[in-house]
């Protein structure tokens, strides 16, 4: 399963010029609002026509300006979950779910989609089936919208910030379901978001969108470990993503030990279990650097490493990458400090990590 996209479209002041390929799993389109993410997925769905280019799903072109091909949205078999659920107000939940299913039941030449009962079960919407959409909460609506798109047996599922309209609590109610859809039904998903947390939870591949163009694409860990790129895409929380395993718990202090390739993190984490594997995120601005081992400091996590690189900087801040036993930890420091400490690639430094964010992999709901 591959989706290859190569499109151009001028929308007022914004020019979309996007070229990327993605495979199965969850591909996240990440970028500032106004960067053109929504336009790209609308073009994928056929709801907007690009000026020129080519889009192919699984080798089958659905749009090709060279041959004048532009497959209508209803024949692309691309599911779309909108930010606002867009449930049909004159139908109850069951009829909403059936809408796409009925229209795709006897489709030849495509894999059969997931069954009604399976989808209702996975999304836990059985109690809602006979209700009208306006009686549902935001999270419930979005789950029904997920199910409706899924039951139309799509070759590809587009999700345009499906959680953006939900409050934080509801978000975590819906996110695990998206993760389960991917695991249980294997439908490839293109997921638009401007939230690193969401992407870390569910995405495998990440495409960075800035000013209508693609500034980076690749596995999530790889792209997320490029704070310079992330910052360009509008993320102030850029930093390193590090896979770790819980290797110890100090219950007296409420401190967990998380081991990674270059050492151990000690974090306050009361509800972790030994053996658990996690991804942790260290924001570049939470890391300070010293050229000598700091003495008598309250910071628990100090790592010795060497400067691997310094991002070219035009502002007062620079991103320094520190190689700690093979793992990159990024630090955001001022250009003045960089010069005062005369940090060059290869120099020995101590990285002090002041805060660590733990992103648990989404468990079954």
């Amino acid at each position, binding site marked *: 399963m591959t989706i290859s996209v190569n499109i151009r479209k001028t929308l007022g002041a914004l020019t979309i010029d996007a070229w990327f390929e993605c495979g199965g799993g969850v591909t996240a389109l990440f970028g500032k609002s106004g960067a053109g993410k929504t336009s790209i997925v609308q073009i994928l769905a056929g709801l907007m026509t690009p000026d020129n280019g080519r889009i192919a799903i699984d080798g089958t072109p659905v749009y090709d300006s060279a041959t004048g091909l532009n497959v209508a949205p209803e024949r692309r078999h691309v599911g779309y979950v909108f930010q606002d659920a867009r449930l049909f107000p004159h139908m109850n939940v069951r009829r909403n779910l059936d809408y796409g299913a009925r229209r795709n039941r006897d489709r030849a030449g495509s894999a059969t989609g997931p069954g009604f009962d399976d989808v209702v079960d996975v999304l836990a919407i059985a109690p809602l089936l006979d209700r009208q959409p306006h009686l549902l909460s935001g999270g419930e609506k979005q789950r029904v919208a997920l199910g409706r*798109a899924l039951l139309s047996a799509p070759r590809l599922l587009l999700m345009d910030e499906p959680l953006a309209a939900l409050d934080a609590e509801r978000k975590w109610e819906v996110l695990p379901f998206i993760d389960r859809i991917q695991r249980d039904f294997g439908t490839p998903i293109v997921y638009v978001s401007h939230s690193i947390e969401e992407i870390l939870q569910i995405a495998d591949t990440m495409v960075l969108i800035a000013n209508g163009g693609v500034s980076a694409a690749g596995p999530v860990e790889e792209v997320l470990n490029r704070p310079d790129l992330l910052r360009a895409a509008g993320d102030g929380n850029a930093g390193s993503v590090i896979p770790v395993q819980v290797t110890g718990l100090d219950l007296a202090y409420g401190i967990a030990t998380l081991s990674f390739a270059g050492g151990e993190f000690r974090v306050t984490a009361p509800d972790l279990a030994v053996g658990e594997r996690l991804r942790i995120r260290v924001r570049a601005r939470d890391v300070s650097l010293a050229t000598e081992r700091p003495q008598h400091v309250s910071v628990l996590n100090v790592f010795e490493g060497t400067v691997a690189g310094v991002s070219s900087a035009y502002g007062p801040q620079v991103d320094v990458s520190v190689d700690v036993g093979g793992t990159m930890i990024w630090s955001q420091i001022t250009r003045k400090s960089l010069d005062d400490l005369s940090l060059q690639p290869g120099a020995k430094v101590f990285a002090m990590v002041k805060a660590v964010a733990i992103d648990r992999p989404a468990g079954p709901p």
Partner: protein
Amino acid sequence: MFSLSPLELEAIQLSLKVSLWAVAISLPFGIAVAWVLARCEFPGKSLFDALIHVPLVVPPVVIGYLLLVLLGRKGAIGGWLYDSFGITVAFSWQGAAVAAAVMAFPLMVRAIRLSIEAIDTRLEQAARTLGAGPIDVFFSITLPLTGSGIVVGVILAFARALGEFGATITFVSAIPGETTTLPVALYGLAQVPGQEGSAIRLVILSIVIAFAAMFVSEVIARRVRRRISGT
């Protein structure tokens, strides 16, 4: 006790028949025109819009006369209809229905158009991504969501058709038992001295029918709204 004279009964039956037919034949066109006006952009749209509204702004007599010229047995369309199919609508109850339909058409279109314009087109987009083609979307999403607008349009058109007089009497005249709808019959009675009593009875009848129609339509409109929003 209150009993209806044969003349009154005839006028009521004719009025209802003419109005129902007028609404029935104009409804499909009304929906189509409303959809075009709500959703399509094309050169000459404002002219088309103005043309639809003509019956609302010119005197009904003018419309009646135009119908006579066009649909009369020697008219441009009427002549062809008569020569080809032997059909003639002038001076018949069918002609009265046509006159009422034309006069009521702008009201019907206006109500339905407003209702179509109020529909969130993003719902239609969602339907497209679920595998519904444009015609399918129209019948499964647009039309059901226009329900309340259609009901309102039908009511307005029916009420207008019941009261239609000017175009009717010009186009189909007052032929007893054929085109003497309530207003036409009432006008006839008003012309004759000493018929004030009968005239008043027709006035009361007209009001009663109008109220009954409004009541029934309100019940239907409420039911349609409830079905759409579920409240």
